[in-house]
């Protein structure tokens, strides 16, 4: 799993740092806007973008071997499994009527 030699330059780091700062400012700005139900979505999209930038550049994944990509991908796959199965529970609680539908009725 030796890392490739084309590691990021100082310029790349500065660009990524600037991008993270801009995105942070955007998060703060978005938090004060009335976006209705889309507020959470916007915040999550910005947060995920920042996380991706950190993982790809600061954590050197872009410059690493395919095997390392596989392991990073596996982490995200299992996170998706966690979200999907958990949300499947919440989404299907009302299907059979009471009593589990009570949860949805108080939302």
């Amino acid at each position: 799993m030796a890392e490739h030699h084309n590691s990021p330059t100082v310029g790349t780091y500065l660009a990524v740092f600037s991008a993270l700062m801009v995105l942070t400012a955007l998060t703060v700005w978005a938090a004060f806007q009335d976006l209705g139900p889309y507020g959470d979505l916007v915040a999550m999209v910005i947060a995920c973008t920042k996380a991706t930038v950190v993982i790809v550049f600061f954590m050197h994944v872009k410059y690493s071997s395919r095997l390392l990509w596989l392991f990073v991908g596996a982490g995200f796959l299992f996170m998706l499994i966690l979200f999907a199965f958990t949300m499947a529970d919440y989404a299907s609680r009302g299907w059979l009527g009471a009593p589990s539908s009570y949860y949805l009725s108080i939302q």
Partner: protein
Amino acid sequence: MAIAEQDGNASGYAAPETNYINNGYGLKSWLLTKDHKRIAVLYMISISIFFAVGGLFAGLIRLELLTPQGDFSHSDTYNKLFTMHGVVMIFFFLVPSIPATLGNFLVPIMIGAKDLAFPRINLLSWYVYIIGGTLGVIGILAGGVDTGWTFYTPYSSTYSNSNVLIVAFAGFLAGFSSILTGLNFIVTIHTMRAPGMTWFRLPLFIWAHYATSIIMLLGTPVIAITLVLMMLERAFGFGFFDPRLGGDPVLFQHLFWFYSHPAVYIMILPSMGVMSEMIACISRKRVFGYEFVAFSSVAIAILGFLVWGHHMFLSSQSTYAGMVFSVITFLVAVPSAIKTFNWTATMYKGSIVYNTPMYYVMGYLGLFLVGGLTGLFLSNMGLDIHLHDTYFIVAHFHYIMVGGQVMGYLGGMHFWWPKISGKMYPEALGKASAVLVFLGFNLTFFPQFVLGYMGMPRRYHSYPDEFQILNVASTGGASVLALGYLLPGIYLIWSIFKGANAPQNPWGAKGLEWEVADTPPTTFNFESTPVVTEEAYQYGPIEEH
């Protein structure tokens, strides 16, 4: 495993003057070591201490349940006893036991490497474990914790008056220790295999540890974060799980079991790896269906992540989600059964040697079979309504975790003890301990299946009079079991001082650790890198040893 390296030293074995044990004396040489074998020994000592502490709590629980009245301990004290038994045994014994001791010792040697990929991280994992363990002990001495090892919210985050924060943080640290171990194993197995050691020449012990490491790496961060969320809610009132604050208590259960069910496989998979090694050796045969056994480890690791909802059939989880979790839980039985059938097929027409490891293998197979089959009872959503939170559950998971995992740990410890210590243990006592453990275990836990089926709930310090006879049997069995565990502790330590010197390969086993590495191994395991030229477990006709 044929080796194209090193001078032959199969006959007239003379152990090297310097080995990993005597290469440096003094506390500093151990506490600052980067040698994977010494770190394994450090883990072995620490884990044995925690096993004794957890066993002490178990003994107090069984003492309380000797009579129907709650007359030995107050109900609050009893809550703390079973919680601390669970926390100590799971976080500080079962999860690290085989990977951190036998795995640490054997993974590099079995693949022909000089050490793990990150020796300093390996030592760090032990220190993190010790800090976590120390915090756990401080929490216990400060009055204990009473939430159950599951730390269910909102009780843990809101209502409990016990030391939840410190003990949960101890569990958090123990989790990081196992992440570091898993990371080390994965990198080592990928990058440090000896020439010729292809994936399908790897011992099945390595496959099992690889699968275990995947779970450690992918699952443990989730429990770590979950515990942090719970601690934040408890300490600062953040609303993650408390409905009054906009949280959801069932969300905690989802997050908790996403790790904690796969954690069962962290505990049992390494034990399965130990079994594969021992069964091949004592049957003098290659493991039947090697590839199937190898891939079944990976299948268990992956499927194990898709079944956590079976802990939540009665926690307001939707019926449809429950059905999916139930079906996948039934599926997990398939790779487990593949292993069990293949081990049995390996023994069929084998030249079986009736030594101590063999006794532990037989015990393991019986107990794991019962534990696994009763798991199918519990996968069934309808039957689970009757059995949920009863002693049936307690019996089931002890059959898997103690019957399966601890039998594997003790069996493996006997199998590799000559390699680890350079000494032989008394064979008769070894067999006696295996028999005592098997009998004591069944006497302790089989009555609990009956008690649970009759409706006795877990986690109560008193019970109706009609349950007493089975509880007395269970407590009696626990005494026999304790003796069975104590005995190896005594004669293994005795063997270090008084035991006969072990030959290089006392069982005539295959594998780099037996055929090439010295007994005990030298600090860097091999004089020069071995070259592997054949598949694992190429046992020939039986030889006299």
